[in-house]
């Protein structure tokens, strides 16, 4: 247990028998440690994702082993593998159906940029259809890299202000993807 890095207590005011901190931080912390991913695995990276879920790497340590295949219940859309143009609208559809707050991680070169498949049939990066929070490089990335990506997402989640999703910037970002 000794080398497991536990979640840090957020900054706050501690006193005799109480501890006060801002709601933002508590909620961010809770969300960060309970990310339910929606694995959108299309190809090779999906197999590495399986390795990430399995015993040797165990994504469950970060509270993320509860896969939810229904977009309603997922917090994190993990797009793993090549997204062909035929698939693009479906990624977008799944993203739209997710409940706020939602995050997207593009795992692997194909999802991030099209990878080695610079062809007529492949979408050159899922950021053409949905906003992406974290890109994980690699073809396919090693499980350590995928875990690193999830940790990056956790950082984002922890530090996100509660009102961000109502802000003008966020609305602009959504509008730039045609999502009003």
């Amino acid at each position, binding site marked *: 247990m000794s080398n497991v890095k536990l979640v840090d207590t957020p900054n706050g005011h501690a006193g005799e028998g109480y501890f006060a901190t801002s709601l933002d931080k508590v909620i961010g912390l809770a969300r960060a440690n309970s990310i339910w991913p929606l694995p*959108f*695995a*299309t*190809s*090779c990276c*999906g*197999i*590495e994702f*399986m*390795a990430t879920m*399995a*015993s*040797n790497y165990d994504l469950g340590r970060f509270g993320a082993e509860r*896969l939810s*295949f*229904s*977009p*309603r219940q997922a917090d994190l859309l993990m797009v793993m*593998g*090549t*997204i*062909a143009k*035929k*698939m693009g*609208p*479906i990624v977008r*559809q*799944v993203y*739209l*159906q997710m*409940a706020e707050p939602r995050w997207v991680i593009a795992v692997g070169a194909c999802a991030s940029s099209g990878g*080695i*498949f610079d*062809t*007529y*049939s*492949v979408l050159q990066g899922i950021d053409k259809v949905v906003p992406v929070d974290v890109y994980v490089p690699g*073809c*396919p990335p*090693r499980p350590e890299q995928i875990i690193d990506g999830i940790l990056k997402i956790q950082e984002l989640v922890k530090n996100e202000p509660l009102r961000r999703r109502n802000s003008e910037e966020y609305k602009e970002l*959504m509008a730039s993807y*045609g*999502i*009003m």
Partner: protein
Amino acid sequence: MEQELTKKTNILEGSSPVSLDQLPQQDYNILNLGPTHPATHGIFQNVLKMDGEKIIDAEPTIGYIHRAFEKIAENRPFYQVTTLTDRLNYCSSPINNMGWHMTVEKLLGVKTTKKVDYMRVIIMELARISDHLICNSVLGVDTGALTGFTYVFQLREKIYDIYEEVCGARLTTNIGRIGGMERDFTPKFWQKLKEFLDEFPKIFNEFDSLLTRNRIFFDRTKNVGGISAERALNYGFTGPNLRATGVDYDVRAMNPYSSYQDFEFEVPVGETGDCYDRFLVRNEEIRQSIKIIEQAMKNMPEGRHFVDVPEFYLPPKQDVYTKMEALIWHFKIVMGEVDVPVGEVYHSVEGGNGELGYYLVSDGGRQAYRLHFRRPCFIFYQAYPELIKGSMLSDAILTMSSLNVIAGELDA
């Protein structure tokens, strides 16, 4: 506004790109299975026409990760095609790599040494093991038993370790070169391989006993998704799925490549071609693969790990820096400036899913004029509607995972 609307539309109706009126409505229920359904693993869609839970008809749609492999292959020098073959059936990419190298060697008329052959056999059989492991454990997951999957994934991790010792990569290995292997097996490789072979029976038997004699698993898979040998041949089945029906067609035994004739192994066959038989055939093939690896280890000949094809085999790095010829060849190979003979070759290997064929047409240029992959998944997946007609929804899912359809191979 659109977001709100889409969000509030139903998941099922919202995500159906195939218009449902393509099928007659009548009193039947139309269920859209995929492309993001958890059981489709890779990505393909099935529009099922159902009567309650019974499937009346199915309409598969594929192509959701079509990546234009064959077009890319026409635009790349030969040694760069290896990366494409990795991503065909990514569960057993070394077999694909080796198959491609052998195809090119056939075209060039290169005869490999026994040492190269045996090294390739070891890697290919490891790949076969990891492929079958994933298929069988995922079949367990789809019946609801997740635990077996995590057991055998530890074995896969061991295989990954071995790959890493050879080439540094885990999944898309890019292992081997045209004309041999990139480097000789290191002592550490042999040590890891021995460890793997020692550990294998224990973990694998545990997995085996968790499912094979499990009554629920037996009931779930027996007589589900069966097909007769005639229909299977007509549908172009190959590999474990064909052998489960009772036809002992194995490319390794029938058209031995890479010195497979030197090894003793059995070709396991089933009887009814149902999910349970497919499961058993794969399990038995894993055991046979172990046997082949042990034989190859024992009889590994001495010699060089590559043959003399300077036009294609990259010279060792220290030679590149010190010898002029090596530098020239290195430059020519990397820049893809090596001409190949004119001709057309068909070479097939026994991939994880069956006969993986490479049809290469060369016009004497520096790239393939036409490279066609005979992808076993693509060919047998079209039998899926026939396999599931009349069965229940749960059976359809099991049938799909026991066929081991790999989207990368399916869609090319």
